């Protein structure tokens, strides 16, 4: 069972926000460029239970994550955590004040192109 000792730092993990520019070719087909690191933020990262991951993705080879961090003003469309490029949902405003966001994310265990 995961425990958080009283007074422990909650935002105890580092994730890197990345931004890949979108380019459109002559036929209007968009494509993503290489992601560039934008900002490193301290985040609360927890692995989803296997059941929740399964329910969410119906896949056996993904790891579901739940992330929380302070909202940032920079634009980003990718997140890297411990060398994994995460796929994530729309950020959710946790505190209704636009200061904390929560994301549901996942990465593939057999990711053929790990970042590091």
């Amino acid at each position: 069972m995961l425990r958080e000792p009283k007074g422990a730092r909650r935002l105890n993990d580092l994730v890197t926000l990345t931004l890949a520019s979108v380019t459109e070719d002559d036929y209007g087909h968009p494509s993503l460029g290489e992601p560039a690191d934008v900002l490193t933020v301290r985040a609360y990262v927890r692995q989803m239970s296997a059941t929740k991951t399964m329910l969410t993705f119906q896949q056996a080879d993904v790891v579901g994550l739940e992330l929380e961090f302070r909202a940032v003003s920079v634009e980003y469309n990718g997140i890297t955590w411990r060398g994994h490029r995460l796929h994530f949902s729309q950020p959710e405003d946790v505190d209704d004040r636009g200061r904390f966001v929560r994301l549901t994310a996942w990465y593939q265990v057999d990711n053929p192109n790990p970042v590091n």
Partner: protein
Amino acid sequence: MVKLTTVSSAEPQREHLAAFKAYASVPDDHLDALLVQLLRTAFKMVQEAADKPILASSLELEVSERDDNSPVVLFQGEGASVVSVTDGTGAPLGYDRRGSLIFPNAATPVVRVLYMTVPDLAEGARLLPFVYQYATALYDGADSKTLANILAQC
């Protein structure tokens, strides 16, 4: 009755803001104006709770409804420099001073003391973590109980 007014106060420094942002894990600069404001409040509250000056400030203390000529205690007054001691009409009063106590020479119903606090570096180093903790709690919208708990540790 005792009334303490902050006439002016030194601003939190850039290092204070940087340390607060590191403490609160704020990664970018878009809310700096708000953070400085929270930091200002936190400094004020912690200084009041601990009764120790961390930032140099100019304070005015007004003691009214005095029955006898008991000494006036200057809040955060350790080592402070007294600018003026006056009675209710604004006329200067003679006084003796011992530490943070002011002994007016004449008994008047109102005594007003204007003084400048001198930051205590050792105490400042001890109290700064509480300032950051308090400012972070304000930023996170923590309830009054949490805020009071932080001040109780000062």
